[in-house]
């Protein structure tokens, strides 16, 4: 089923919440939590995610989260979460010092060698976060990155300075640039004078589709970080299908993803169709 063996190198760690709070002045619907779980942090690679549960009782299932950063020295990971349902509301209620059960690292990491390669990263909202570990990895491996980040407001361009330390960053925020301004327009312009070798999209179907179209016309591959409601996160439940583009069934986001070549998978929300 899987082309490479399923990741079974995860652990379940009873980590501890170190910091937790709401980010930015807007609706108060984005939180940031820092969790100490040295075992998981030490093993994490770009593309990995974790299943997180900071609560007892309801909801029953843990929640998939892709950290913005892992700090091996302190054993800490930093997660931004959009507060929308019972799971993220429960995370928001957690106090420092309380237990955070973390299962991870999960999924297939992005482990290619990026020596000499130029990579564009296109992210929006909390979908920006998994791109930072990737950006760091690419630069560490001798590649170049440019980040194209989109959000509702400037507060939600997570990790902006850290991306900026790694390469050029283009930003579009709705409340300044308008809802219709796509950050991929900047990528489109820059593709004209600059060779791009690959693009990774996350957090917006619209931006990812735009990035894919640029890839097709300029001849570079595009990848997407997919999301799916997950039962287990580890390959047991078969509950996280990504619809394959050729109509040829499904792959499992948790063990065969979360990163897929865009040509393989359908780029639309299974419930709501194509949003934003």
């Amino acid at each position, binding site marked *: 089923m899987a082309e490479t063996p399923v990741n079974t190198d995860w652990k379940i760690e009873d980590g501890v919440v170190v910091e937790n709070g709401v980010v930015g002045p807007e609706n108060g619907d984005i939180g940031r939590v820092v969790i100490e779980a040295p075992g998981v942090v030490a093993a994490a690679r770009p593309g990995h995610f974790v299943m997180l549960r900071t609560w007892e009782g309801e909801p029953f299932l843990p929640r998939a989260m892709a950290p913005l950063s892992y700090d091996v020295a302190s054993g800490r990971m930093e997660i931004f979460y959009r507060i929308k349902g019972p799971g993220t509301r429960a995370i928001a209620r957690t106090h420092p010092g309380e237990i955070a059960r973390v299962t991870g690292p999960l999924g297939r990491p992005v482990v290619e060698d990026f020596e000499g390669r130029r990579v564009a990263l296109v992210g929006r909202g909390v979908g920006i976060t998994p791109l930072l570990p990737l950006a760091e990895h690419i630069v560490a491996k001798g590649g170049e990155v440019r980040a194209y980040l989109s959000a509702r407001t400037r507060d939600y361009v997570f990790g902006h300075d850290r991306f900026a330390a790694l390469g050029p960053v283009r930003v579009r925020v709705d409340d300044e640039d308008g809802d219709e301004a796509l950050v991929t327009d900047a990528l489109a312009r820059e593709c004209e004078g600059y060779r791009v070798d690959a693009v990774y999209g996350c957090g917006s179907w619209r931006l990812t589709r735009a990035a894919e179209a640029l890839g097709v016309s300029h001849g570079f591959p595009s990848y997407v970080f997919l999301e799916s409601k997950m039962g*287990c996160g580890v390959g047991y439940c078969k509950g996280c299908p990504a619809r394959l583009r050729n109509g040829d*069934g499904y792959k499992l986001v948790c063990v065969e993803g979360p990163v897929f070549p865009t040509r393989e998978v359908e780029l639309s929300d299974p419930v709501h169709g194509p949003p934003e």
Partner: protein
Amino acid sequence: MKAELATDVGPLRLKNPVMPASGTYDWFGRDPEQVSADSFGAVVTKSVTLRPQAGNPPIRVAETPSGMLNAIGIPSVGIEEFLEEVLPQYHALDPPVIVSVQAYSPRECESMLARLSEQPRVDAVELNLSCPNLAHGTITAQSARLSAEMVAAARGATRLPIVAKLSPNVTDIAEIARAVEEVGADALCLINTVKGMAVDVETRQALLGNRSGGLSGPAIKPIALSMVWECYQEVDIPIVGVGGIATAEDALQFLLAGARAVQVGTATFREPRSLARIIAGIEEHLAQDGLHSVGELVGWCHKGRLTVGS
């Protein structure tokens, strides 16, 4: 004193009474250290079908109060690839291997069981009679006649122990249980998921891709316990209890109601260490209560009152 955790489920000898429920655990050639299938009483595979099938479109899982709905639809590589690619990996495991079989007709059942009987390391088969995707519209286990036909076909094709897994969506579970016992099932597995549905108020539609799904998790524990109790009264073959077990106390309740072994499904998704903890918890409880073996507890509820405290 160390209590004896071993238990028999008909012809199957288990070192402890706890195993994963079909479709909620997979052996991928190795396990994370904290999961370790080697410590399980048995291993049960995800149901396998005769021919390959892709499973249902998204969304496949939804959360519900103290439980979840799934409409996975049994994605399967088909029995041939299963025998070639998947099953051989299980040889590395110590516990008995129970292969869950999803057949769409007695004929399919026959041919799958014939193939499985040739394998060196299949210790039992579990017949999933409770899948809601059958061609002729009913779940096999909703009909005593269809259930008996399927189990009879299986019985004719194999000498392996046969566990018949029944559906809770019936008027009279004991009737179905008696029907499969009569044609040679060696054990019952009770229960599969309960039919349920979730509605998304935003889209105003069924949330699951397949509209309805199967409810599992702690929410259904009282339903499963009641069915185990009832069937224990009505049939002589051993019962494997499943439905909402998340703690050692839950598992003990099933044993007391009459199960000789238990399966743990949805709880693993919340906490992958669940099985290990349940096994340890049962052992601790037996020791505390000064019991010698798990078997002493099985069906205790049916014996009458234990007098305590006086």
